[in-house]
């Protein structure tokens, strides 16, 4: 029963994908959208069933299907594992997934390839479920690569535009860099412990005597590289902002709520590995903190509404990694969940705005949408408050815990994280003000067509806004349901509910204050002074550097892409020809010898006889005189 249900959970989106890809075109847009959505909802329902079961029984469910890859010292099978972590993840993956599917029915209605869009979305959900549900690292890897593929397909959904295709390709390749790291990590774990199964791995590590920490650290580091790629951390983060080329629901689902959190999922899953590699944990924390700050600074000056959100995502993911690095896995998971709510809402909201403006994404051409788009505005506002860490919205609780953990471990990390939070508040409200307040700055035509989005779009917004508002309840500082729920997963004792003393309250106050300061500055700048960001060419100074994202893309382009391309040119034009002429030069030389040899054969009998005589003399001399 459980097996079948789990398979249903897994395969429902896949069947949706199959159905849509083969028949979607014939059954009409709405029908294909509905089927796609239903498939995910089905999964969601199954997940709910498992959630209640596991929440009650605390028993993980293992499902083994059949052998897959055979290695000399171990076998990898198609196995699935439903435990607290995976079910939790599935819950919001399928849950938010369902909402976004619903949203897309309306949002993508004008696109001729809507059935494909739903097919890809379903496929994504399928792979995401595989990723989460897999009971070993290789099944995770299937999902890991699979979601990368869907990300590729969906970013490049409008494939007529080669820039979008470039973005899609970039996302795929940067992910693959991480994937290589992940694979290497898998190799090391596999050869050290002869298993890739989570459970056996955990017991192997637990049971191992004199573990080689270095090997384990290398493995952990490699895994972390994988996580970096998927979760857009420095140095592999540049694909995520570019990935905004895809349709907005995609950004919401894949590049905000679900896929990018896979890295966090994986590290949480393998917490027992990372716990044994403190050096790697430090690296993770530092990388997370730096990423959150860098991304936040870039987000300060961006003018594309989705780009701001994208950098915001990177920044938030950085905060989660910070928590992971500090060993506070449950805190990271908490932030993942709240982030999924409010970031999905923000993206969908921005989608609603873009929808209303017929594709306009530049905030300089927006403004004053409060009146026409009330629901969108309110949901957006709630989510913005949540992400800015204003109580009592969900973000406040999760972010605060991260800051708390950071403060406990390292004051510098806390400062960085706090700065990032402050900036978050600023750029989010900058976004909000520029988009919804003041006068409309777009064209007349756009102005005439301004409208609130249909119910199919606003309904998910409302649901998500509610979740963003109340999501913090699952892990209140003093009474955390989440911590208790996740506790069986972690080898270390989960942080005891904090003793809330003066320090904690001060910190909380500082955080809230920081958020308010950020909001205040934004208010002053964009409401009071009605400032509008300069057009591209007028941006100067630090702002220009920030606006151009520290020129990281350019640097990568120069260092990696250009050099590899010029290497390719070099190889193609010179090394290849060189090698060819080296090998076939021998043939040429022989040929030339033949040509020169023809001159000796000049037709003269005298010469021939002379050679005859010389040959005779040589042989006779050698045989009879030289001895």
């Amino acid at each position, binding site marked *: 029963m459980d097996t079948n249900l789990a398979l249903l959970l897994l395969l429902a989106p896949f069947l949706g994908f199959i159905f849509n890809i083969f028949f979607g075109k014939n059954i009409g847009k709405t029908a294909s959208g509905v089927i796609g959505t239903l498939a995910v909802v089905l999964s969601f329902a199954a997940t709910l069933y498992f959630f209640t079961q596991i929440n009650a029984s605390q028993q993980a469910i293992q499902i083994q299907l059949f052998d897959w890859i055979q290695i000399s010292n171990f076998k990898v099978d198609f196995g699935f594992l439903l435990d607290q972590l995976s079910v939790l993840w599935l819950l919001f993956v399928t849950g938010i997934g369902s909402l976004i599917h619903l949203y897309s029915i309306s949002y993508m209605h004008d696109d001729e390839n809507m059935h494909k869009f739903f097919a890809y979305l379903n496929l994504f959900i399928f792979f995401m479920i595989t990723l989460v549900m897999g009971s070993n690292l290789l099944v995770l890897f299937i999902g890991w690569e699979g979601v990368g593929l869907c990300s590729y397909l969906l970013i490049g959904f409008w494939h007529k535009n080669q820039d979008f295709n470039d973005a899609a390709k970039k996302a795929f390749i940067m992910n693959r860099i991480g994937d290589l790291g992940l694979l290497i990590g898998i190799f090391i774990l596999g050869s050290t412990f002869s298993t890739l199964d989570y459970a056996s791995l955990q017991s192997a590590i637990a049971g191992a005597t004199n573990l080689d920490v270095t090997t384990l650290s290398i493995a952990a580091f490699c895994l972390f590289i994988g996580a970096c790629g998927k979760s857009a951390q420095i140095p592999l983060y540049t694909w995520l902002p570019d990935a905004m080329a895809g349709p907005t629901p995609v950004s919401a689902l894949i590049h905000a709520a679900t896929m990018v959190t896979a890295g966090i999922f994986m590290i949480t899953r393998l917490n027992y590995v990372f716990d044994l590699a403190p050096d790697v944990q430090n690296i993770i924390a530092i990388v997370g903190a730096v990423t959150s700050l860098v991304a936040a600074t870039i987000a300060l000056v961006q003018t594309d509404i989705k780009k701001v959100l994208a950098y915001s995502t990177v920044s938030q993911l950085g905060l989660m990694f910070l928590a992971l690095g500090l060993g506070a896995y449950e805190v990271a998971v908490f932030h993942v969940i709240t982030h999924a709510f409010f970031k999905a809402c923000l993206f969908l909201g921005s989608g609603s705005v873009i929808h209303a403006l017929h594709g306009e994404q530049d905030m300089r051409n927006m403004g004053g949408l409060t009146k026409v788009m009330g629901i969108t505005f309110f949901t957006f506002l709630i989510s913005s408050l949540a992400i800015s860490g204003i109580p009592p919205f969900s973000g406040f609780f999760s972010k605060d815990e991260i800051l708390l953990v950071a403060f406990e471990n390292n004051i510098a990390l806390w400062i960085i994280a706090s700065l990032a939070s402050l900036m978050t508040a600023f750029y989010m409200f900058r976004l909000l003000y520029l988009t919804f307040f003041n006068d409309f700055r777009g064209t007349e035509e756009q102005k005439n067509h301004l409208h609130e989005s249909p119910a199919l779009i606003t309904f998910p917004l409302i649901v998500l806004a509610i979740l963003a508002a109340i999501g913090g309840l699952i892990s209140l500082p003093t009474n955390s349901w989440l911590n208790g729920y996740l506790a069986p997963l972690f080898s270390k004792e989960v942080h005891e509910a904090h003793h809330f003393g003066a320090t904690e309250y001060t910190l909380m106050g500082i955080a809230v204050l920081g958020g308010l300061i950020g909001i205040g500055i934004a208010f002053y700048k964009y409401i009071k002074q009605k400032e509008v960001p300069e057009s591209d060419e007028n941006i100067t100074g630090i702002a220009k550097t920030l606006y151009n994202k520290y020129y990281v893309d350019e640097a990568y382009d120069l260092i990696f892409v250009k050099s590899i391309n010029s290497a390719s040119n070099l190889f193609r034009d010179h090394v290849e020809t060189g090698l060819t002429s080296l090998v076939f030069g021998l043939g040429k030389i022989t040929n030339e010898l033949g040509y020169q040899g023809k001159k000796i*054969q*000049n*037709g*003269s*009998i*005298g010469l021939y006889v*002379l050679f005859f*005589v010389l040959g005779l003399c040589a042989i006779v001399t050698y045989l009879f005189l030289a001895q």
Partner: protein
Amino acid sequence: MDNILNEIGIENYIFLAVILFSIGVCGVLYRRNAIIVFMSIEIMLNAVNLLFVAFSTYHQDTQGQIFVFFSMAVAAAEVAVGLAILVSIFKNMGTISIDKLKNLKG
């Protein structure tokens, strides 16, 4: 009867034959006139014939001389054919210089 080689020595015959043979070789190389080249070849064959007879005496054996007959027959046959070819060339080209025979080369 005393063996005549006791007086002269087989080596001398060999040397004579070798030198004669070499003159023949030299002629083949030196002369461009095909007929003279033929003659040079005849000289070579004769040098060998001479040596055959000398060896025949050396071994007191008839066979060497018999072989000279065959060698003569061969020489005659070769000359006949050779001259026939030569005449043919002369008819076609009007010359018998072997320097002119350089159409086939390379």
